[in-house]
Protein backbone atom coordinates (compact mmCIF):
# COMPACT_ATOMS: atom_id res chain seq x y z
CA UNK A 1 0.00 0.00 0.00
CA UNK A 2 2.70 2.41 1.06
CA UNK A 3 4.67 1.44 -1.98
CA UNK A 4 1.74 2.06 -4.24
CA UNK A 5 1.08 5.46 -2.71
CA UNK A 6 4.73 6.29 -3.06
CA UNK A 7 4.67 5.47 -6.73
CA UNK A 8 1.54 7.52 -7.32
CA UNK A 9 2.99 10.39 -5.32
CA UNK A 10 6.25 10.17 -7.22
CA UNK A 11 4.44 10.57 -10.50
CA UNK A 12 2.37 13.47 -9.19
CA UNK A 13 5.14 15.38 -7.51
CA UNK A 14 8.08 14.12 -9.43
CA UNK A 15 6.52 15.44 -12.58
CA UNK A 16 6.11 18.92 -11.21
CA UNK A 17 8.68 21.32 -12.52
CA UNK A 18 10.32 24.25 -10.82
CA UNK A 19 8.58 26.40 -8.27
CA UNK A 20 6.37 28.98 -9.90
CA UNK A 21 8.36 31.94 -8.62
CA UNK A 22 11.59 30.72 -10.19
CA UNK A 23 13.79 33.46 -11.61
CA UNK A 24 16.31 31.88 -13.88
CA UNK A 25 19.51 33.54 -14.92
CA UNK A 26 21.22 31.67 -17.75
CA UNK A 27 24.88 31.84 -18.68
CA UNK A 28 25.46 33.86 -21.82
CA UNK A 29 29.24 33.82 -21.82
CA UNK A 30 31.49 31.61 -19.83
CA UNK A 31 35.18 31.06 -19.44
CA UNK A 32 36.50 28.23 -17.37
CA UNK A 33 40.21 27.69 -17.27
CA UNK A 34 42.60 25.61 -15.27
CA UNK A 35 46.22 25.90 -14.53
CA UNK A 36 48.73 23.35 -13.37
CA UNK A 37 52.06 24.73 -12.29
CA UNK A 38 55.16 22.66 -11.71
CA UNK A 39 58.84 23.50 -12.02
CA UNK A 40 59.05 21.53 -15.27
CA UNK A 41 55.94 22.49 -17.14
CA UNK A 42 52.96 24.82 -16.90
CA UNK A 43 49.79 23.40 -18.34
CA UNK A 44 46.73 25.51 -19.00
CA UNK A 45 43.52 25.13 -20.91
CA UNK A 46 40.45 27.24 -21.57
CA UNK A 47 36.84 26.24 -22.07
CA UNK A 48 34.22 28.68 -23.38
CA UNK A 49 31.43 26.18 -23.95
CA UNK A 50 30.07 25.74 -20.44
CA UNK A 51 26.46 26.28 -19.55
CA UNK A 52 25.04 27.34 -16.21
CA UNK A 53 21.87 28.55 -14.51
CA UNK A 54 21.23 30.41 -11.27
CA UNK A 55 17.77 30.30 -9.79
CA UNK A 56 17.61 33.51 -7.79
CA UNK A 57 14.40 32.45 -6.07
CA UNK A 58 16.10 29.75 -4.04
CA UNK A 59 19.82 30.32 -4.69
CA UNK A 60 20.30 27.14 -6.65
CA UNK A 61 23.15 27.05 -9.13
CA UNK A 62 24.08 24.44 -11.71
CA UNK A 63 27.13 24.39 -13.99
CA UNK A 64 27.82 21.95 -16.79
CA UNK A 65 31.20 21.89 -18.54
CA UNK A 66 31.81 19.80 -21.67
CA UNK A 67 35.20 18.32 -20.85
CA UNK A 68 36.33 17.78 -24.42
CA UNK A 69 36.00 21.50 -25.16
CA UNK A 70 39.02 22.45 -23.08
CA UNK A 71 41.51 23.95 -25.53
CA UNK A 72 45.19 23.41 -24.91
CA UNK A 73 47.93 24.99 -26.96
CA UNK A 74 49.69 21.63 -27.06
CA UNK A 75 47.26 19.35 -28.88
CA UNK A 76 49.02 16.20 -27.79
CA UNK A 77 48.42 17.21 -24.19
CA UNK A 78 44.81 17.92 -25.06
CA UNK A 79 44.50 14.42 -26.47
CA UNK A 80 46.08 12.86 -23.41
CA UNK A 81 43.88 14.98 -21.14
CA UNK A 82 40.77 13.64 -22.86
CA UNK A 83 41.96 10.09 -23.40
CA UNK A 84 43.76 9.26 -20.20
CA UNK A 85 43.14 11.72 -17.44
CA UNK A 86 39.55 12.90 -17.70
CA UNK A 87 38.33 10.08 -19.99
CA UNK A 88 35.94 12.50 -21.64
CA UNK A 89 34.20 9.93 -23.81
CA UNK A 90 33.14 8.07 -20.68
CA UNK A 91 32.54 11.19 -18.57
CA UNK A 92 31.68 13.93 -21.08
CA UNK A 93 30.70 16.61 -18.53
CA UNK A 94 32.04 18.08 -15.34
CA UNK A 95 29.16 19.45 -13.27
CA UNK A 96 28.45 21.42 -10.16
CA UNK A 97 25.05 21.34 -8.52
CA UNK A 98 24.65 23.43 -5.43
CA UNK A 99 23.01 26.16 -3.47
CA UNK A 100 24.28 29.62 -2.62
CA UNK A 101 24.62 29.79 1.16
CA UNK A 102 24.12 33.54 1.57
CA UNK A 103 20.77 35.19 1.14
CA UNK A 104 21.18 37.78 -1.58
CA UNK A 105 18.83 40.45 -2.73
CA UNK A 106 19.13 39.97 -6.45
CA UNK A 107 17.07 43.06 -7.11
CA UNK A 108 19.77 45.24 -5.57
CA UNK A 109 22.87 45.91 -7.63
CA UNK A 110 26.25 45.39 -6.01
CA UNK A 111 29.06 42.98 -5.43
CA UNK A 112 28.41 40.07 -3.13
CA UNK A 113 30.98 37.66 -1.73
CA UNK A 114 29.27 34.30 -1.71
CA UNK A 115 29.84 30.62 -1.31
CA UNK A 116 27.93 27.73 -2.79
CA UNK A 117 27.71 24.26 -1.29
CA UNK A 118 26.91 21.25 -3.34
CA UNK A 119 28.30 18.45 -5.40
CA UNK A 120 31.16 18.82 -7.81
CA UNK A 121 31.34 15.99 -10.29
CA UNK A 122 34.55 15.57 -12.27
CA UNK A 123 35.66 12.35 -13.94
CA UNK A 124 32.43 10.74 -12.74
CA UNK A 125 33.38 11.20 -9.09
CA UNK A 126 31.18 13.27 -6.76
CA UNK A 127 32.73 15.52 -4.15
CA UNK A 128 30.88 17.55 -1.54
CA UNK A 129 32.32 21.06 -1.92
CA UNK A 130 31.82 24.59 -0.76
CA UNK A 131 33.13 26.92 -3.44
CA UNK A 132 33.72 30.62 -2.89
CA UNK A 133 33.18 33.33 -5.41
CA UNK A 134 31.76 36.75 -6.03
CA UNK A 135 28.56 37.77 -7.72
CA UNK A 136 28.25 41.18 -9.34
CA UNK A 137 24.56 41.85 -9.66
CA UNK A 138 23.38 44.35 -12.24
CA UNK A 139 20.07 45.03 -13.91
CA UNK A 140 19.00 41.68 -15.32
CA UNK A 141 22.63 40.59 -15.40
CA UNK A 142 24.88 38.73 -12.98
CA UNK A 143 28.63 38.24 -13.24
CA UNK A 144 30.16 35.34 -11.43
CA UNK A 145 33.81 35.08 -10.57
CA UNK A 146 35.24 32.11 -8.79
CA UNK A 147 38.58 30.53 -8.13
CA UNK A 148 39.01 27.17 -6.50
CA UNK A 149 41.33 24.21 -6.41
CA UNK A 150 40.68 20.67 -7.52
CA UNK A 151 42.74 17.86 -6.07
CA UNK A 152 43.29 15.19 -8.68
CA UNK A 153 43.16 12.45 -6.07
CA UNK A 154 39.65 13.57 -5.01
CA UNK A 155 38.34 12.69 -8.44
CA UNK A 156 40.37 9.55 -9.02
CA UNK A 157 42.46 11.15 -11.76
CA UNK A 158 45.73 9.31 -11.56
CA UNK A 159 48.99 10.55 -12.95
CA UNK A 160 51.61 7.95 -13.80
CA UNK A 161 54.81 8.22 -11.78
CA UNK A 162 56.84 8.91 -14.89
CA UNK A 163 55.05 12.21 -15.52
CA UNK A 164 54.31 13.01 -11.90
CA UNK A 165 56.57 16.04 -11.77
CA UNK A 166 54.98 17.54 -14.89
CA UNK A 167 51.45 17.73 -13.60
CA UNK A 168 50.53 19.36 -10.31
CA UNK A 169 48.48 17.33 -7.86
CA UNK A 170 46.38 20.39 -7.24
CA UNK A 171 44.84 22.19 -10.21
CA UNK A 172 43.79 25.83 -9.94
CA UNK A 173 40.44 26.38 -11.64
CA UNK A 174 38.93 29.76 -12.33
CA UNK A 175 35.55 30.55 -13.78
CA UNK A 176 34.04 33.74 -15.14
CA UNK A 177 30.39 33.58 -16.16
CA UNK A 178 27.97 36.25 -17.31
CA UNK A 179 24.30 35.45 -16.67
CA UNK A 180 21.28 37.17 -18.08
CA UNK A 181 17.72 36.91 -16.87
CA UNK A 182 15.95 34.37 -19.02
CA UNK A 183 12.65 33.53 -17.34
CA UNK A 184 10.38 35.13 -14.77
Amino acid at each position, binding site marked *: MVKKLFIIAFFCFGGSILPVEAQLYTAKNSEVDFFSKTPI*EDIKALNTKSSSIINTANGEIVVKI*PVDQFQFSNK*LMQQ*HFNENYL*ESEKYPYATFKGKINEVINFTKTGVYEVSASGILNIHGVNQERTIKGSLTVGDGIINLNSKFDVLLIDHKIDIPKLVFKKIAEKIAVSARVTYILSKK
Partner: protein
Amino acid sequence: MKRIYLILLLLIPQALKAQDELMDLLSDSTEVSYKSGTFKANRIINGHSVETVGKKNLDFVISHRFDRLNRGFDEFFGLDAATIRLGLEYGINDRLMVGMGRSSYQKVYDYFGKYKLLRQTSNSEKIPLSLTLVSGYAIRTQKTNPSLSSFDRSSYFGQFLLARKFDAGFSLQVSPTLIHRNRPDTFNDSETVFSTGFAGMYKISKRASINGEYNYVLPNQIDDSYTNNFSFSLDLETGGHVFQLLFTNSFGMTERQFITETNGGWGKGDIHFGFNISRTFSFEKKNKNKW
Protein backbone atom coordinates in the same frame (compact mmCIF):
# COMPACT_ATOMS: atom_id res chain seq x y z
CA MET B 1 4.13 7.19 12.47
CA LYS B 2 3.76 5.45 9.18
CA ARG B 3 2.01 8.47 7.81
CA ILE B 4 4.91 10.76 8.68
CA TYR B 5 7.28 8.50 6.83
CA LEU B 6 4.95 8.57 3.91
CA ILE B 7 4.84 12.36 3.85
CA LEU B 8 8.61 12.52 4.13
CA LEU B 9 8.94 10.05 1.31
CA LEU B 10 6.67 12.16 -0.79
CA LEU B 11 8.74 15.27 -0.16
CA ILE B 12 12.13 13.75 -0.93
CA PRO B 13 11.61 13.08 -4.62
CA GLN B 14 10.29 16.59 -5.09
CA ALA B 15 13.22 18.15 -3.29
CA LEU B 16 15.66 16.09 -5.33
CA LYS B 17 13.74 16.67 -8.47
CA ALA B 18 13.87 20.45 -8.19
CA GLN B 19 17.65 20.55 -8.48
CA ASP B 20 17.78 17.88 -11.12
CA GLU B 21 15.28 19.84 -13.16
CA LEU B 22 17.55 22.84 -13.13
CA MET B 23 20.39 20.62 -14.32
CA ASP B 24 18.14 19.18 -17.01
CA LEU B 25 17.51 22.67 -18.34
CA LEU B 26 21.16 22.84 -19.28
CA SER B 27 21.30 21.49 -22.75
CA ASP B 28 23.98 19.08 -23.87
CA SER B 29 26.88 20.61 -25.68
CA THR B 30 25.99 21.26 -29.29
CA GLU B 31 29.62 21.30 -30.31
CA VAL B 32 30.42 18.51 -32.71
CA SER B 33 33.21 16.61 -31.07
CA TYR B 34 35.54 14.27 -32.82
CA LYS B 35 37.13 11.09 -31.64
CA SER B 36 40.57 11.82 -30.36
CA GLY B 37 43.39 9.35 -30.23
CA THR B 38 42.27 6.86 -32.85
CA PHE B 39 45.97 6.14 -32.85
CA LYS B 40 48.43 7.50 -30.34
CA ALA B 41 50.91 8.86 -32.85
CA ASN B 42 51.06 10.12 -36.42
CA ARG B 43 52.69 6.86 -37.42
CA ILE B 44 51.15 3.51 -36.66
CA ILE B 45 54.63 2.02 -36.78
CA ASN B 46 56.21 2.66 -40.18
CA GLY B 47 53.18 3.92 -42.02
CA HIS B 48 51.03 6.98 -41.45
CA SER B 49 48.01 6.89 -39.18
CA VAL B 50 44.91 9.07 -39.59
CA GLU B 51 46.24 11.41 -36.90
CA THR B 52 47.86 14.74 -37.67
CA VAL B 53 49.86 17.19 -35.59
CA GLY B 54 47.69 19.81 -33.87
CA LYS B 55 47.43 23.42 -34.95
CA LYS B 56 50.68 25.33 -34.71
CA ASN B 57 52.30 22.37 -33.02
CA LEU B 58 55.69 21.12 -34.12
CA ASP B 59 56.53 17.49 -33.67
CA PHE B 60 60.16 16.52 -33.57
CA VAL B 61 60.34 12.82 -34.37
CA ILE B 62 63.38 10.63 -33.86
CA SER B 63 63.12 7.09 -35.22
CA HIS B 64 65.70 4.35 -34.97
CA ARG B 65 65.86 0.96 -36.61
CA PHE B 66 68.58 -1.36 -35.44
CA ASP B 67 70.11 -4.16 -37.46
CA ARG B 68 68.56 -7.64 -37.60
CA LEU B 69 68.15 -9.65 -34.42
CA ASN B 70 69.65 -12.72 -36.12
CA ARG B 71 73.04 -11.00 -36.43
CA GLY B 72 73.79 -12.79 -33.20
CA PHE B 73 75.78 -11.94 -30.13
CA ASP B 74 78.84 -10.55 -31.92
CA GLU B 75 76.71 -7.74 -33.31
CA PHE B 76 74.73 -7.61 -30.09
CA PHE B 77 71.59 -8.80 -31.90
CA GLY B 78 71.73 -5.92 -34.33
CA LEU B 79 72.08 -3.13 -31.78
CA ASP B 80 75.62 -2.30 -32.97
CA ALA B 81 74.29 -0.84 -36.20
CA ALA B 82 71.39 1.54 -36.54
CA THR B 83 69.64 3.80 -38.98
CA ILE B 84 67.94 6.98 -37.94
CA ARG B 85 65.26 9.21 -39.36
CA LEU B 86 64.97 12.73 -38.04
CA GLY B 87 61.65 14.35 -38.79
CA LEU B 88 60.04 17.73 -38.32
CA GLU B 89 56.27 17.76 -38.68
CA TYR B 90 54.10 20.85 -38.34
CA GLY B 91 50.36 21.37 -38.04
CA ILE B 92 49.12 24.28 -40.15
CA ASN B 93 45.69 23.80 -38.60
CA ASP B 94 43.98 20.94 -36.83
CA ARG B 95 43.40 19.13 -40.12
CA LEU B 96 46.36 19.94 -42.35
CA MET B 97 49.98 19.18 -41.66
CA VAL B 98 53.27 19.09 -43.49
CA GLY B 99 56.39 17.20 -42.65
CA MET B 100 59.91 16.46 -43.74
CA GLY B 101 62.51 13.98 -42.73
CA ARG B 102 65.95 12.73 -43.40
CA SER B 103 66.84 9.05 -43.14
CA SER B 104 70.41 7.83 -42.82
CA TYR B 105 69.51 4.67 -44.73
CA GLN B 106 70.15 5.48 -48.44
CA LYS B 107 70.35 9.13 -47.30
CA VAL B 108 66.74 9.76 -48.16
CA TYR B 109 65.02 13.12 -47.83
CA ASP B 110 61.26 12.88 -47.61
CA TYR B 111 58.49 15.48 -47.69
CA PHE B 112 54.79 14.96 -47.20
CA GLY B 113 51.45 16.65 -46.68
CA LYS B 114 48.54 15.15 -44.83
CA TYR B 115 44.94 16.27 -44.59
CA LYS B 116 42.06 15.04 -42.45
CA LEU B 117 39.15 14.96 -44.88
CA LEU B 118 36.64 13.28 -42.55
CA ARG B 119 36.81 13.03 -38.82
CA GLN B 120 34.87 10.40 -36.92
CA THR B 121 32.40 12.11 -34.60
CA SER B 122 32.31 11.08 -30.98
CA ASN B 123 28.95 12.39 -29.74
CA SER B 124 26.96 10.99 -32.65
CA GLU B 125 27.34 8.55 -35.50
CA LYS B 126 27.12 11.33 -38.07
CA ILE B 127 30.54 10.49 -39.43
CA PRO B 128 31.32 6.88 -38.59
CA LEU B 129 34.95 6.88 -39.66
CA SER B 130 37.96 9.05 -40.29
CA LEU B 131 39.47 9.57 -43.70
CA THR B 132 42.86 11.18 -44.03
CA LEU B 133 44.76 11.78 -47.25
CA VAL B 134 48.52 11.72 -47.30
CA SER B 135 50.91 12.22 -50.15
CA GLY B 136 54.63 12.58 -50.32
CA TYR B 137 57.85 12.72 -52.25
CA ALA B 138 61.19 11.16 -51.40
CA ILE B 139 64.63 11.33 -52.94
CA ARG B 140 67.68 9.20 -52.32
CA THR B 141 70.95 11.09 -52.14
CA GLN B 142 73.36 8.25 -51.48
CA LYS B 143 76.07 8.12 -54.16
CA THR B 144 75.77 5.21 -56.54
CA ASN B 145 77.97 3.91 -59.30
CA PRO B 146 76.98 4.73 -62.01
CA SER B 147 75.41 7.86 -60.63
CA LEU B 148 71.70 8.36 -61.21
CA SER B 149 69.81 11.49 -62.13
CA SER B 150 67.65 13.06 -59.44
CA PHE B 151 64.62 11.97 -61.45
CA ASP B 152 65.75 8.34 -61.25
CA ARG B 153 66.26 8.62 -57.52
CA SER B 154 62.80 10.05 -56.83
CA SER B 155 59.66 8.32 -55.69
CA TYR B 156 56.12 9.39 -54.81
CA PHE B 157 53.33 7.94 -52.73
CA GLY B 158 49.69 8.59 -52.02
CA GLN B 159 47.41 6.97 -49.47
CA PHE B 160 43.80 6.97 -48.36
CA LEU B 161 43.80 6.27 -44.65
CA LEU B 162 40.44 4.98 -43.45
CA ALA B 163 40.11 4.35 -39.75
CA ARG B 164 37.50 3.77 -37.13
CA LYS B 165 37.82 3.90 -33.38
CA PHE B 166 35.42 1.22 -32.23
CA ASP B 167 35.56 1.92 -28.53
CA ALA B 168 37.91 3.69 -26.18
CA GLY B 169 40.63 1.13 -26.66
CA PHE B 170 40.35 -0.40 -30.10
CA SER B 171 40.93 1.08 -33.57
CA LEU B 172 41.43 -0.31 -37.04
CA GLN B 173 42.79 1.26 -40.19
CA VAL B 174 42.85 0.27 -43.84
CA SER B 175 45.17 2.19 -46.15
CA PRO B 176 44.97 1.75 -49.91
CA THR B 177 48.33 2.93 -51.19
CA LEU B 178 49.95 3.84 -54.47
CA ILE B 179 53.70 4.16 -54.81
CA HIS B 180 55.55 5.29 -57.89
CA ARG B 181 59.30 4.83 -58.35
CA ASN B 182 60.81 6.46 -61.39
CA ARG B 183 63.45 3.79 -61.43
CA PRO B 184 62.90 0.60 -59.40
CA ASP B 185 66.02 -1.14 -58.08
CA THR B 186 65.00 -4.41 -59.67
CA PHE B 187 64.66 -4.21 -63.42
CA ASN B 188 61.44 -6.24 -63.73
CA ASP B 189 59.54 -4.43 -61.00
CA SER B 190 56.62 -2.24 -61.97
CA GLU B 191 57.25 1.42 -61.49
CA THR B 192 53.85 1.92 -59.92
CA VAL B 193 52.96 -0.40 -57.08
CA PHE B 194 49.58 -0.83 -55.42
CA SER B 195 49.37 -2.03 -51.87
CA THR B 196 46.96 -2.01 -48.96
CA GLY B 197 47.92 -1.47 -45.39
CA PHE B 198 46.03 -3.00 -42.49
CA ALA B 199 46.63 -1.76 -38.99
CA GLY B 200 45.15 -1.96 -35.55
CA MET B 201 45.61 -0.54 -32.10
CA TYR B 202 44.55 -2.16 -28.88
CA LYS B 203 44.94 -0.36 -25.57
CA ILE B 204 46.23 -2.56 -22.80
CA SER B 205 46.08 0.21 -20.21
CA LYS B 206 45.27 3.92 -20.19
CA ARG B 207 48.72 4.82 -21.39
CA ALA B 208 49.95 1.78 -23.25
CA SER B 209 48.78 0.13 -26.41
CA ILE B 210 49.81 -2.63 -28.78
CA ASN B 211 49.87 -1.83 -32.49
CA GLY B 212 50.12 -4.09 -35.47
CA GLU B 213 50.69 -3.11 -39.09
CA TYR B 214 50.80 -5.19 -42.26
CA ASN B 215 51.40 -3.79 -45.72
CA TYR B 216 50.18 -6.14 -48.40
CA VAL B 217 51.57 -5.60 -51.90
CA LEU B 218 49.22 -6.90 -54.57
CA PRO B 219 50.82 -9.77 -56.53
CA ASN B 220 52.98 -9.58 -59.71
CA GLN B 221 54.34 -6.10 -59.09
CA ILE B 222 57.63 -6.58 -57.31
CA ASP B 223 60.32 -9.24 -57.29
CA ASP B 224 59.72 -12.39 -55.23
CA SER B 225 62.78 -11.65 -53.11
CA TYR B 226 60.85 -8.81 -51.47
CA THR B 227 58.51 -9.54 -48.59
CA ASN B 228 55.51 -7.76 -47.21
CA ASN B 229 56.18 -5.43 -44.33
CA PHE B 230 54.89 -6.60 -40.98
CA SER B 231 55.48 -4.81 -37.70
CA PHE B 232 54.15 -4.61 -34.21
CA SER B 233 54.84 -2.19 -31.43
CA LEU B 234 54.19 -1.19 -27.88
CA ASP B 235 53.22 2.47 -27.55
CA LEU B 236 53.78 4.25 -24.27
CA GLU B 237 52.64 7.73 -23.41
CA THR B 238 54.60 9.80 -21.00
CA GLY B 239 52.71 13.11 -21.12
CA GLY B 240 53.73 15.21 -24.12
CA HIS B 241 55.72 12.29 -25.50
CA VAL B 242 54.75 9.15 -27.30
CA PHE B 243 57.31 6.41 -27.18
CA GLN B 244 56.94 3.48 -29.59
CA LEU B 245 59.00 0.36 -29.10
CA LEU B 246 58.73 -1.79 -32.17
CA PHE B 247 59.73 -4.86 -34.11
CA THR B 248 59.63 -4.80 -37.90
CA ASN B 249 61.15 -6.63 -40.86
CA SER B 250 62.07 -3.40 -42.63
CA PHE B 251 65.17 -1.30 -42.27
CA GLY B 252 63.89 1.77 -44.10
CA MET B 253 61.25 4.16 -42.82
CA THR B 254 59.93 5.82 -45.97
CA GLU B 255 57.03 4.35 -47.95
CA ARG B 256 59.11 3.23 -50.90
CA GLN B 257 61.53 1.47 -48.59
CA PHE B 258 59.20 -0.36 -46.26
CA ILE B 259 56.38 -1.17 -48.66
CA THR B 260 58.21 -2.07 -51.86
CA GLU B 261 61.76 -2.87 -50.75
CA THR B 262 61.46 -4.88 -47.56
CA ASN B 263 63.57 -8.00 -47.82
CA GLY B 264 63.58 -9.33 -44.28
CA GLY B 265 61.58 -12.44 -43.43
CA TRP B 266 60.06 -12.76 -39.98
CA GLY B 267 60.46 -16.54 -40.12
CA LYS B 268 64.19 -16.25 -40.73
CA GLY B 269 64.65 -13.86 -37.83
CA ASP B 270 65.27 -10.81 -40.00
CA ILE B 271 63.64 -8.68 -37.39
CA HIS B 272 64.71 -5.17 -36.57
CA PHE B 273 64.19 -3.71 -33.16
CA GLY B 274 63.51 0.02 -33.22
CA PHE B 275 61.73 2.92 -31.67
CA ASN B 276 59.97 6.14 -32.58
CA ILE B 277 59.95 8.97 -30.10
CA SER B 278 58.33 12.33 -30.60
CA ARG B 279 58.29 15.56 -28.68
CA THR B 280 55.57 18.11 -29.37
CA PHE B 281 56.17 21.85 -29.11
CA SER B 282 53.45 24.45 -29.33
CA PHE B 283 53.82 27.73 -31.19
CA GLU B 284 50.38 29.04 -30.45
CA LYS B 285 51.57 32.33 -28.95
CA LYS B 286 48.19 34.00 -28.69
CA ASN B 287 46.87 31.27 -26.52
CA LYS B 288 49.93 31.37 -24.32
CA ASN B 289 49.76 35.06 -23.53
CA LYS B 290 46.08 35.09 -22.87
CA TRP B 291 46.44 34.20 -19.27
